[in-house]
């Protein structure tokens, strides 16, 4: 390591102060923007994948005339007879459009506020009085729902409009803990009977049936069997959901990657353009160095150190700013692009998910290209005869 050469390279950066500063600034902003986006999308993906294993392994739904309809409860027995199916649970859930605020609530029914749920409820619901809940038919709502209702002057109760036009008044017992906001924000949880009444559903029909499979290896086989057994069904496996998430967020970050690539190329074109028409001052300098007995690779080494210092410092600063911006400031503005502009916006913390792969990708996408864009034109000048450059 020739520390004189490094010293020379760094003082060269300082001699071209304004230009170096500008390059570092642009480079840093580029890295900052891109890594912020990748961090956000990583975080949200991470969030989804955390809970993926708790989801039903197979969901069976019914299609009629290409649309979803409710599935007959009688199918459960047939599903249970399939080998490998441990349990089949009917579910009732759906959306309730609250016209006044223009938002959709997701209403989910559970058997009843049974003793078996007591422990789980204590974990996820804010100070809940379980017996009270059990006695009066009441509901537990997400924080977002609670907020929207409050804004519309519903304190502690809400009137659902049934399909026949009658009102159904239900008490709000409690809200979910804010730790679950990202999942629970728009959820209303209540006993099944109430959900059936609000949706006006037939008693022997349910929204879908979820299956528990003893051996995860068998999921694809069982899914296939169900499809054969009920040709009108839509069978969704756990891995389908995973792929689906992956797609949607890859799509979003992909759009940004495309934007980034355009801006990155513009940036490198500018750098290349500027460098390939090296200013006469810089050309003269290379000529002087060559005349003084510098070899081509000495000149290139100095240029390499310069480019490396610029790009590496920009990279570090950009990533650090992005970490701070995303995980400490919670990515104002940028987060909206990923979580959308729905009116039921959850308040949540992006979970920290540090992905070395992303960083490596970013590193190798930017730094070598920048260094090449600096070195190649310098090499062209340096490989000319020394006296040519000086004249």
């Amino acid at each position, binding site marked *: 390591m*020739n*520390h*004189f*050469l490094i010293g*020379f390279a760094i*003082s060269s950066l300082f*001699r071209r102060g304004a230009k170096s500063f500008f390059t570092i600034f642009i480079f840093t902003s580029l890295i900052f923007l891109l890594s912020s986006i990748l961090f956000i999308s990583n975080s949200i993906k991470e969030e989804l994948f955390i809970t993926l294993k708790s989801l039903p392994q197979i969901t069976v739904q019914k299609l009629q005339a290409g649309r979803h309809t409710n599935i007959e409860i009688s199918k459960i027995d047939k599903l249970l007879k399939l080998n490998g199916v441990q349990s089949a649970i009917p579910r009732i859930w759906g959306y309730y459009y609250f016209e006044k605020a223009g938002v959709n609530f997701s209403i989910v029914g559970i058997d009843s506020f049974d003793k078996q749920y007591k422990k789980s409820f204590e974990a996820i619901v804010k100070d809940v009085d379980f017996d009270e809940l059990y006695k009066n038919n009441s509901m537990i709502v997400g924080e977002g729902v609670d907020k929207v209702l409050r804004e519309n002057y519903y304190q502690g109760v809400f009137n659902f409009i049934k399909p026949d036009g009658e009102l159904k008044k239900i008490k709000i017992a409690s809200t979910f803990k804010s730790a679950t906001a990202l999942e629970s924000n728009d959820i209303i949880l209540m006993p099944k009977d109430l959900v059936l009444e609000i949706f006006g559903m037939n008693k022997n029909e349910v929204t879908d049936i979820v299956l528990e499979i003893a051996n995860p290896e068998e999921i694809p086989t069982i899914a296939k069997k169900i499809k054969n057994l009920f040709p009108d069904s839509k069978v969704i496996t756990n891995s389908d959901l995973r792929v689906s998430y992956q797609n949607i967020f890859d799509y979003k970050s992909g759009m940004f990657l495309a934007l980034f690539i355009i801006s990155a190329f513009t940036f490198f074109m500018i750098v290349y353009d500027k460098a390939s028409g090296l200013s006469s001052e810089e050309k*003269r*300098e290379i*000529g*002087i*160095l*060559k*005349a*003084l*007995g*510098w*070899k*081509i*690779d*000495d000149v290139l080494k100095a240029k390499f150190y310069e480019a490396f210092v610029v790009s590496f410092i920009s990279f570090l600063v950009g990533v650090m700013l992005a970490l701070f911006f995303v995980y400490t400031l919670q990515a104002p503005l940028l987060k909206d692009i990923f979580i959308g502009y729905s009116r039921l916006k959850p308040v949540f913390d992006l979970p920290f998910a540090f992905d070395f792969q992303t960083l490596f990708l970013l590193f190798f996408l930017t730094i070598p290209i920048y260094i090449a864009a600096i070195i190649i034109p310098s090499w062209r000048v340096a*490989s000319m*005869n*020394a*006296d*040519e450059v*000086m004249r």
Partner: protein
Amino acid sequence: MIECKNITKVFNQNKRNEQTALKNINLEIKSGELVVLKGASGSGKSTLLSLIAALSKPTIGEMVVDDKRVSKMPDNFTAMFRRQNIGFIFQKYNLISTLSSYENIILPTIPSNPDEIELDKRVDELLKMFDITSKKESHIKNLSGGEQQRVAIARALINNPKIIIADEPTANLDEKLSLEFIDIIKELKQQKRTIIIATHDPLFFNLDFVDRVIEMKDGQILCS
């Protein structure tokens, strides 16, 4: 020490603006000799100097310096050769104006990664010799013409070269400074270095310590 064998140098060969700078030059300079190349501008002095310093290569002929055929060496070797053997004082000094005197002087040593303490000692020696110690950290753009030239000479001497080449050294100096430069040359001559000076300044033609004055015209040697 330096041998030019049938040197011809053509610029822009086979192009419309082809120009022959040197025609069939034969010249021998012995070790320790002080030679003055004399001639009007455009007579080919500078081209000859750059060939000797291996900054460019002759179109025809061979250049042998210190028993090395520099005209046949690949680029990287000529760079090494220049660094080790030749101190070049350029007409316009060719200093990097945004660096300090010290940084300019050590430029030729950087690729060989010198020892810092020894280097500092050597630089201080040279600064003292040329009386610019107080300007060590000054930027070149803040120095006067004479000071700049002394920095350029110090830079040419930093690697202790056997051969010193000066191209029009007094062109930008007044008479007093020119005389000072001649004193420096005299000292270098006493150190038994081979010195080649290209100039059209009459001050150099009648010095007692000059071994030979060679006159050039239109790329040819007239007399020596």
